[in-house]
């Protein structure tokens, strides 16, 4: 379980988080909804210790990430897969090497086994035979899928998705959403998805945390969101569902 408690974070004089709290229970997908620029990506980086909050706690399996040493954080990160918004592929490495890099750090594999795992991870994201391509020759959607293959190849316990469907066409976005659901249902992966794409959020999410102005204004299921009388939540949901605010096709 991942429990985020009263996280506060400033960048210079600018407060980004002023009290964020939520928890992602085992084997569920929690979607963190909020406007662009609201510090959602920062939140994911704090969960795996790439950034430290100014105050508050983040517990993963009962241990506080905020107070961990660098070595402890390295060990913790082996339990996570992170899909970056821009995929963050290493542009000097092939697709195979990108995925293998994540595996090599976590154990000693024979080259044959590495190739098998890479091929399997690529088949999951529908990119069979893409091993020898360079990232520069991939489309945005393909990059994201390779990024996802790299994140899931080491078989992580937790998956963090940073805007997984932003900038993708509807078909590719639907494919990514299905993958997120498959990972939860077939492998029992606990996931946190941060997005401002509410349509995708409702497809993949079991529960939702809605951020507004640097604080969590609601956490709950889809049914609880639909029934809420919280004006801020209703306003956020309605404005996000309007066609002009939805993610690009």
């Amino acid at each position, binding site marked *: 379980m991942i429990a985020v408690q009263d996280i506060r974070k400033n960048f210079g004089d600018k407060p980004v988080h002023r009290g964020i709290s939520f928890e992602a229970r085992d084997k569920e997908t929690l979607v963190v909804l909020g406007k662009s620029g609201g510090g959602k990506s920062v939140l994911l980086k704090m969960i*795996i210790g*790439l950034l430290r909050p100014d105050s508050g706690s983040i517990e993963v399996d009962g241990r506080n990430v905020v107070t961990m040493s660098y070595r402890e954080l390295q060990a913790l990160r082996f339990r996570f897969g992170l899909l970056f918004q821009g995929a963050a592929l290493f*542009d000097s490495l092939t697709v195979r090497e990108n995925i293998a890099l994540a595996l090599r750090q976590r154990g000693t594999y024979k080259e044959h086994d590495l190739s098998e795992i890479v091929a399997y991870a690529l088949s999951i994201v529908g990119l069979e035979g893409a091993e020898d391509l360079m990232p520069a020759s991939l489309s945005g959607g393909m990059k994201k899928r390779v990024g996802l293959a790299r994140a899931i190849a080491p078989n992580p316990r937790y998956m963090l998705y940073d805007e997984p469907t932003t900038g993708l066409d509807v078909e590719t976005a639907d494919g990514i959403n299905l993958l997120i659901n498959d990972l939860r249902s077939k492998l029992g992966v606990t996931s946190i998805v941060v997005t401002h794409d509410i349509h995708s959020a409702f497809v993949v999410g079991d529960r939702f945390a809605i951020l507004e102005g640097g604080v969590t204004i609601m956490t709950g299921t889809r049914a609880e969101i639909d029934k809420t009388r919280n004006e801020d939540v209703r306003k956020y949901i309605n404005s996000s569902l309007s066609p002009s605010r939805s993610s690009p096709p």
Partner: protein
Amino acid sequence: MDIAVEPAAPAAFRDPSFFTHIGRKAIAALENLGRYVGLIWWILRNLRNAREYSKTFFAQMVQIGNDSIPIVIFVSTFVGMVTAVQSAHQLYSWIPKTVVGGLVIKSVLLELTPLLTALVLAGKVGATITAELGTMRVTEQIDALEAMGYDSISFLVTPRIVAGIIMFPVLVVFGDLLAVCGGLFGATVVSDVPGGAFINGIKSSFVSWDAFFGIIKATIFGYTITSIACYKGYFVEGGSAGVGKATMATVVLTCLTVVMLDFILASVLL
């Protein structure tokens, strides 16, 4: 009606933001220095981690050393030629021609090859390192490495600095040899100095300490250029524009530091 006008202070001093600006610059410089020292301290404390990434290290040896050979050949040969030609031109007719060889070997070993190689490589190697690491930072590739459990400093920075420390002296020794060959060519073909006299001049003036001094300088320049370039690239901020600024800053800062260190090393070691 006459109006008495008091002499005004310079505009910069009347403006309180001038002092604020100076103060902020000073704080930023100290912050940078602290972060640089922190980076080097981290590298030294985690050298054992870097051994795991030996493949990256050999790739950097090739990039810094092998890929710089053409430019070193070009610069060193011409430096040797021009030193020989200018030395011969400045000598009185009654001074023996062997002096040309002596001047070339002394200038090349002590100063010209280490300094000019370092300045050229500050542009080539320094800019490349900063641009590479800076791009990796702004495209979150460094975050991705950390997220996979890699120690990104040991994986990216340490191999570059160690490769610089090893390959710069190798390039300088190579450059020394080429500069002497260039000097021989310039002296004999352009300035009519007999080849035998030139070589005798080299033999009589060669002191092994001069070559060793050049190697010490190259080692220090190698560390300086790669460490500054890595620092600027690893901590880049501000997207692609930030990468451009950091790359330019690396070239300027490494060139200035190399020239300054050149003077300090000459003062201390000679």
